[in-house]
């Protein structure tokens, strides 16, 4: 919104003729660099796996750290069982519900607090106080309130997600340019128009920041809930595996959790790319 530095890589001539950017050599340099980084990543991962495989059994007993080969074969076998898929679907349900509820309330409260000064004056310290509770400590309480089923886990996850979303959105509200809002009022815009065309798009970046950060937090909430008391779910499975000294199963469970989080992140990124297309077009690309 403010004046920007006018040096650009995408050159645009004064008379309106759009000149192709002179970046072919730079693009190939970029590509080479990316390839180098990718190779480095693969090598690093392989090295870590090799070390893991090497010390398993030889230096550290296999029942403690398992080994990559047994984790992989275990994961494959597990994914062919019906119970594993039940666990995954229960955890996925808890994850999606907890995430959605936390996100909706986080955005709602963030917007309210950001638009009504009196509310934020009264409730800001209260919310900060509640956020000070180590939320995992509330798990037994949620169990008491919502029982053994999925809802105690949903509550735990949404509680954590709420705060992540709330703080992102509230800060986003404070960063909206008051001049832009006032200017639209001068143009005759009513509240609804300002909300749709100015406020909501201004919030898109903080909302997506919150949506992304929230995915792994939602998983933490769900898994903690399943650790406390459950009879289904990936967290429950991991706990069982641990109690049976089945370290390969434990690692498989963790891999499945990571996969679920990564899928969630991908979905958010996909949506983000569709919504924040305008942001990519900036000068500093």
């Amino acid at each position, binding site marked *: 919104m403010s*004046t920007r530095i006018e040096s650009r890589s995408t050159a645009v001539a004064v008379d309106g003729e759009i000149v192709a950017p002179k970046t072919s050599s730079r693009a190939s340099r970029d590509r080479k660099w990316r390839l180098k980084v990718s190779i480095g990543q693969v090598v690093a991962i392989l090295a870590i796996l090799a070390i893991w495989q090497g010390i398993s059994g030889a230096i550290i007993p296999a029942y403690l750290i398992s080994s990559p080969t047994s984790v992989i074969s275990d994961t494959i076998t597990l994914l062919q069982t019906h119970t594993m898929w039940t666990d995954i679907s229960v955890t996925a349900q808890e994850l999606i519900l907890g995430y959605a509820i936390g996100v909706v309330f986080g955005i709602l409260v963030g917007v309210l607090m950001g638009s009504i000064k009196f509310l934020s004056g009264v409730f800001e310290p209260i919310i900060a106080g509640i956020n000070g509770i180590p939320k995992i400590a509330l798990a037994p309480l949620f169990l008491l309130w919502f029982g053994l089923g999925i809802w105690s886990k949903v509550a735990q996850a949404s509680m954590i997600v709420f705060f992540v979303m709330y703080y992102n959105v509230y800060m986003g509200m404070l960063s909206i340019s008051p*001049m832009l809002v006032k200017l639209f009022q001068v143009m005759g815009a009513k509240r609804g128009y300002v909300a749709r065309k100015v406020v909501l798009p201004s919030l898109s970046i903080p909302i997506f920041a919150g949506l992304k950060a929230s995915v792994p937090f939602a998983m933490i909430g769900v898994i903690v809930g399943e650790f406390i008391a459950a009879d289904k779910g990936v967290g429950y499975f991991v706990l069982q595996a641990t109690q049976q000294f089945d370290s390969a199963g434990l690692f498989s469970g963790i891999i499945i959790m990571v996969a679920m989080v990564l899928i969630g992140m991908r979905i958010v990124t996909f949506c983000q790319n569709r919504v924040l297309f305008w942001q990519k077009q900036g*000068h500093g690309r």
Partner: protein
Amino acid sequence: MLEFRNVTKRFETPGGQEVNVLQDVSFTVDDDEFCVVVGPSGCGKSTLLNLALGLVPVSEGQIIHNGKVVESIVSSDVGYITQDANLLPWSTVLDNIMSPLEIRGVPKAERRAQAMEWAEAVGLGKFVDFYPGQLSGGMQKRCSIARTMAYDPAMIYMDEPFGPLDAITRTVLQETLLNLWQTRRKTILFITHDLVEAIALGDTVIVINGQPGSVKARIPIPLSRPREIRHLAADTEFVELHTKIWSYLEPGVESMA
């Protein structure tokens, strides 16, 4: 009509004290008048416009807009071209220009046509699908000019609209503005720190200077219209006016050095 009556504006400084930015400012802008305000950087010109539109409250005095005391944001048939472009970064040039038309409920096809016309007029015809982030500072400013002009308000407040533009683009846009004003008669309050521009455009030039800023002079510009902006500099009357207005600006300029 716009009237400032003994308006004083105080801001709180970062140190917590109050400082007067504008002091006892009084002037009127008549209907259909082209009124230009000149003054050095920091004398309170942008503040003056923000006050006139009710974006910030006055500390003392009154502002009367079309017979009513300004107490909240003025939104009746006025346009404000702010010093920063203030475009929507998530909307294209065309959508930005169309937004006030959309607010007014202008049908889509008409809205497009009007917006296109002004995009062309400010030289952005080939850039209507660009996002503000893809434009230079001057192009962003031109887009914001088009946004205001396209909905054709009766009263326009402009804060250094041609400030970031090169001499040629600026002259072309000045001529466009003068033509428009001559054919459609509007009330214009135009801020600039360019003395030549002030004399070339205005019916009246108000000089604001000092810290706090106050009205140092109100100078009618008797140059005949239509004016040939490109050839004004050779006009003897123009040179006299230039010297005269310069003298009111001088003390402030010196104290800033």
